[in-house]
C-alpha cells in the first residue's frame, strides 16, 4: 500500500524517520555553530593579526605569539597564576567529600542543613567576590581582625599584598566550588551499595580503610564530574579577579582569561589580535583536559550504544 500512495505523498512523508532528526537539529546546530564553533576558528585567525576591533586587520603572522612567549612578564604571571588556580582549586574535591561525609546522616532537619551548605554555589560569583573582599579588608576586615589576634599582620591586607592576593581570591573561589563538589558526593553517597558496606563491615573494615577501598571506588562517577567542573571552573576564573582586585596589586592576580580581557578591551586601545593569541594559549592548556574528558565520556557512550 505504501508504494501505491508514495507518489502522492510528499518527500518529507516518505523519508520522515531519516529527515526528522535533521529538522530538529537545524536550529540548535545553527546557533551553536554561529556563536561557539565558528568563533573558535575565528579567534585562531584573528590571533595572527594586529587589530583594533574596528578597522582593517593587519597580518602579522606569529608576531603575537613571539611577543607572548618571548618574555611578556604579564603573560608569565598570568600563566603561573593559572597553574596555582588549577592546583589549589582541586582542593574543593577532598573538602567537598569531607563535608558530604559529615552531612550524610539521617537526623532531624538534615535536608535543610544540606541545602544551607550548598547555598554559596547558588550566589553569583560577583557577590561572593564582593563579600570576600569586605571580609579581607585591611585592618577592618574580619579576617585581619582574626589573624591579628594570633599576631599575624599582612601588610596591605590579603588582597593588597602581591604575595597573598591570588591565594585570597582562590580561597574565595573554593567556597562555592566546595559546595558544588559536596552536593555531587552527597548524591553519590546516596547510591552507594549498602550490602557492600555491610559486607565490608562484617569483614572488619571501617573508617579510612572502608572509605578508600569500598566507598571511593563507588564514588568514581561523582569524582569524575567534580574533577571536570573544578578544572573548567579554575581555568575560566574571571569574575572573582575582576571584582576583588581587578588584576592588582601590581598585576599580581592576573590569570590568562583576565589578561586576555584586559588586552582586548583595555582603556589603552583594543588589541584584539594579542587578546585572541592569549585566548588560544588558554585553549591549548584546556585542550589536554577536554581531550581526556571527552575520551572518558566517549568510552561510556560506546559501551551503551
Amino acid at each position, binding site marked *: 500500500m505504501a508504494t501505491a500512495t508514495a507518489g502522492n505523498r510528499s518527500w518529507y512523508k516518505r523519508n520522515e524517520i531519516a529527515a*526528522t*532528526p*535533521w529538522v*530538529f*537539529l537545524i*536550529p*540548535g546546530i545553527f*546557533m551553536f555553530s554561529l*556563536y*561557539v*564553533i565558528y568563533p573558535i576558528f*575565528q*579567534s585562531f585567525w584573528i590571533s595572527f593579526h594586529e587589530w583594533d*576591533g574596528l578597522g582593517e586587520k593587519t597580518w602579522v603572522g606569529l608576531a603575537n605569539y613571539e611577543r607572548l612567549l618571548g618574555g611578556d612578564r604579564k603573560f608569565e604571571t598570568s600563566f603561573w597564576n593559572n597553574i596555582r588556580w588549577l592546583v589549589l582549586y582541586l582542593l574543593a574535591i577532598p573538602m567537598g567529600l569531607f563535608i558530604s561525609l559529615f552531612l*550524610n*546522616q*539521617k*537526623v532531624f532537619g*538534615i535536608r535543610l542543613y544540606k*541545602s544551607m551548605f*550548598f*547555598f*554559596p554555589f*547558588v550566589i*553569583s*560569583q*560577583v*557577590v561572593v567576590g*564582593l*563579600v570576600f573582599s*569586605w*571580609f579581607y579588608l585591611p585592618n*577592618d*576586615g*574580619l579576617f585581619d*581582625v582574626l589573624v591579628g589576634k594570633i599576631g599575624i599582620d599582612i601588610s596591605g591586607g590579603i588582597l593588597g599584598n602581591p604575595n597573598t592576593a591570588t591565594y585570597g581570591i582562590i580561597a574565595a573561589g573554593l567556597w562555592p566550588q566546595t559546595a558544588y563538589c559536596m*552536593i*555531587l*558526593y552527597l*548524591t*553519590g553517597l*546516596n547510591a*552507594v551499595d549498602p550490602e557492600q558496606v555491610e559486607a565490608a563491615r562484617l569483614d572488619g573494615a571501617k573508617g579510612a580503610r*572502608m572509605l578508600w577501598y569500598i566507598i571511593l571506588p563507588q564514588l568514581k*562517577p*561523582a569524582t*569524575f*564530574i567534580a574533577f571536570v567542573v573544578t578544572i573548567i571552573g579554575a581555568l*575560566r576564573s574571571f569574575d572573582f579577579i*575582576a*571584582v576583588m582586585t581587578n588584576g592588582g596589586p601590581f598585576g599580581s592576580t592576573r590569570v590568562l*582569561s583576565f589578561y586576555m*580581557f584586559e588586552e*582586548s*578591551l583595555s582603556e589603552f586601545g583594543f588589541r584584539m589580535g594579542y587578546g585572541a593569541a592569549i*585566548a*588560544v594559549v588558554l585553549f591549548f592548556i584546556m585542550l589536554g*583536559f577536554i581531550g581526556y*574528558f571527552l575520551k572518558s*565520556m566517549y568510552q561510556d557512550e560506546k559501551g551503551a550504544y
Partner: protein
Amino acid sequence: MFPTPIAKTTLQWQITYQLLLPIVLAIWLLPLIAVAIFSIKPDADFTNGNYWGMPSSFEMMNNYGKVFFESDMPRYLLNSVFITVPTVIGAVLLSSMTGFALGVYRFKGNLLIFFVFIAGNFVPFQILMVPVRDLTLSLNLYDTKIGLVLFHIAFQTGFCTLFMRNFIRQLPFALIEAARVEGVSEWRIFVYVVLPLMKPALAALSVLVFTFIWNDYFWAIVLTQGPDSQPVTAGITSFNSQYRAAYHLMSAGSIIAALPPVVMFFLMQKHFIAGLTLGAVK
C-alpha cells in the same frame, strides 16, 4: 550507609553531632551572615569602625529602601529578568529538539554531533570573546538585551543538549515504537509522547539555566554597557562605585542581586540538584 548512621553510635556522639551541625554551618556561612548584618547597619557604624559588632540601630527598611528607590538597581534587576527568562525559554526549547534528535534517532554522525555539543561547552569561553563581540556589533545588537540573549541561548544549548539527550535515552523506547505503529507522525511523537515525559528534565534545566544566566558577569560586561541593558551582576559593580565605602548600601544591593537564584533554588531544590548532579551516579 557510610559513615555509620548516627543512630547506631554512642549517645555521646549523637549529642555532639547535633550540637556540631549548627556550629559548623554558622562558620561555613559566616561571610553571608556578615553581609546580612552589614545590610541592616546604619552608616555611622562603619565610620565609627564598628564593622563586625552588633548594629547600633536597625536600618533594614532604610537601607533596602534606598537601594530600591534611589539607585538604578530596579532597572538592573528588570534587565536581568528580561535577559534570563528568554534565555531559559530559548535554550530549553532548542535543546529539547536537539536532545530528541540525538536521543531517539540512529543516524550517521549522531555521536559526532553530540560530542561537538559537549566539547564546545568545555572550551574556555574567553576564546569566543573577540569574535562574538564582533558578531554582535555587526548585527547591531551590541549593548542590547537581545544580543546577550542570543549568545546565551547558543552557548547554553551545548550543556542542555547533553542533559536532554541523556534524559531521553532513559525513556522507554517502546512508547515511541508503539506510537509509530499507530501511524503517529514524528513531530507529534515529540510533542505528545516525549515532551510530557520530559517534564522533570525541563524543570531541572530551567532552574539551572536561570541560575547560570542570572549570575553571568563576563558576557554582561563584554556585550553590554550602562543601565539600559546591563544585568544586575554588572550593575552591582557600578552601583558599588557610586556608593564607595557605603558598606550598608553595597551589602543590601548585593543581597538583592543574589536573591532571585536563591529563591529559585529553594523552590525547585529537587530539580536543581538532579540537574547539577547528572551523571554523578551510574
